[in-house]
Each structure stands twice: as C-alpha cells, then as structure tokens.
C-alpha cells in the first residue's frame, strides 16, 4: 500500500524530520499535526521510506569525538581493479570497519581506490586492529596508508531538504 500523503506533505515531512524527531511520546502524531495529516499517514510514509532504504539510519547522531572516539583512521588501499570488489566485500563485512567505499584513483596525485573508516579510542589500538584485519585478509602487501584525523573542523549531520538549503551545524 502506498502512503497517502501528497507531495507537498511529503516534502514538509522530510524537512521536519531532517531537523530532528520531536521528543514527544507520540512523535509521529506531532508531525502529523504539523503537516495536516494523521499519525497513521505519517507512520505509513516513514515506514515506506524505511522499506525503500531512504534512511541511512533512524536514530541519533553522536558527537563521537566528544564520546572519546578520537582515534579516527581512514585506511586507504590500492587494490588491483580485478580484485577490488571482492576485497571491498570482505572488508565491508569485517567487524570494526564502519564504512567501506570504492573511489576513483586520481593518478599521479592519488593512487588508492578502496577506503575504510575505523574509529577507536586509542591510536595504538586502531593501528593494531587494522594490522590484524589486513593480515587476516592477506592484504598487508598491497600499498596502503592510514590517515588519522588530528582535528575536526566541522562535524555536522547533513540536512538536505530542498526547501532548506542552509544547514545549521553543530
């Protein structure tokens, strides 16, 4: 069953959700009141978006550095094109790897095509974990680098509704 909100209501709901979910006992009823719909209509729409995979996650955005996750490493690897999909899938399923993407090389400036994010509290712990992951998958001999972040200049959850081009930060 497709949700019964019209396009304007859907856009309005998206822009409200991107600001955050109301901290109310019945948040979807509150959102319904704001857009002129019932709680049930809002729930159906949100469940439909969830089923379509439109949410990357439905929960909370942590200020992970403030919570002690200060050792934040981007592991980049140069994996032959013929192998990169298989290696990406292996690493993507490995515990401790939060994100794993394939990206283009930009020769001669940049030769790495596989990117993984690993977060931890201590740098040495993250280095040891990554060394163990590379060894477990036999990847230690491929060119790779660990790019630790030393400072966050801007960290904010994106808010992308088209009618709200200005995104507040932090």
């Amino acid at each position: 069953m497709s949700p019964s909100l019209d396009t304007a209501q859907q856009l309005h709901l998206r822009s409200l959700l991107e600001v955050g979910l109301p901290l109310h006992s019945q948040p979807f009823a509150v959102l319904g009141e704001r857009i002129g719909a019932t709680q049930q209509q809002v729930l159906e729409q949100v469940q439909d978006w969830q089923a379509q995979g439109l949410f990357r996650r439905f929960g909370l955005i942590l200020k992970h550095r403030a919570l002690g996750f200060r050792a934040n490493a981007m592991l980049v690897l140069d994996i032959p094109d013929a192998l990169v999909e298989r290696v990406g899938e292996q690493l993507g399923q490995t515990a401790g790897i939060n994100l794993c993407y394939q990206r283009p090389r930009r020769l001669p400036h940049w030769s790495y095509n596989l990117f993984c994010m690993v977060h931890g509290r201590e740098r040495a712990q993250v280095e040891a974990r990554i060394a163990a992951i590379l060894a477990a998958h036999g990847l230690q001999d491929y060119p790779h680098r660990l790019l630790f972040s030393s400072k966050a200049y801007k960290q904010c959850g994106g808010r992308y509704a088209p009618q709200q081009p200005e995104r507040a930060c932090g």
Partner: protein
Amino acid sequence: MDDFDRRLINRLQHGLPLLANPWQVLAEELQSSAQQLRQRVQELLDDGTLTRFGPMFDIEHFGGAFTLAALSVPEARFDAVAEQLAALPEVAHNYRREHAWNMWFVLACATPQGIDACVARIEALTGLPVLNLPKEETYHVGLHFPL
C-alpha cells in the same frame, strides 16, 4: 555518562521503532520509563553528547549527491582555508588528516551538478586543486560506536 546512558545510546544507534509509541517500546526493552528516556535524550542533546536525534536521509535517493574531497593546504594557510570551507553550506565534515593531502571533507549537494559547481568554487576561493573522490561502490555503511 553512566551505564544507563551507554545502554540507551547503544540501543538508539540501531534506530527507533517506527511505531505510534516508540518510547514505550524502548522503555520496556531498557527497563525504564518512556518519560525518563525522552528526558535523558533531551539532556544529551543539550550537553552536546548527541548532535541530533532523528533520521538521516540517504540524499542520493532524492537525486542528491555526496563526495569525499581533499586539499593539500600549505601549513600557514590551514586555519584560514578551514574557515573558508566552514562557511560553505555544502561542506558537511572537515578533518585534518596526516598526509600531504591534509584537509579532507565531505560535500553534500542537492544534485550531482551541484558537486561540480562546489568543487569549482572551492578551487576558485582557495586557489588550490581539489581531489574529488566520489564513491563508485559501497561495500559497507554501518557507522556504529559501541559505548
């Protein structure tokens, strides 16, 4: 941050139930009250532990686009260039990293053309070439911080 906070945050990182009374469901799971959970989330937002509570849309489903990009910024100009980027609404994150490409940031735009325009704007603003690395394949997205 006590044990209750850790359990609450760990649970919420897996998402909020999409039900009429989501807090009631969580309260039963966490052996707390719906009122107490909401109040605690509000406090964690107020004190900055959480920056946001609510869904993150995958903007690519709506025709939007992301890219990861980098600059190689001369040390003397680093903070000034970081400020230039911070002023751009398309810049969602910006981290200093230990590499010759020392400034890494995410751009989020409503359209793929917007990314190209933003890259050109950053190059014009800074006079530095941008390394633009849009993702070609996603193998895993599961940002999760066990507390």
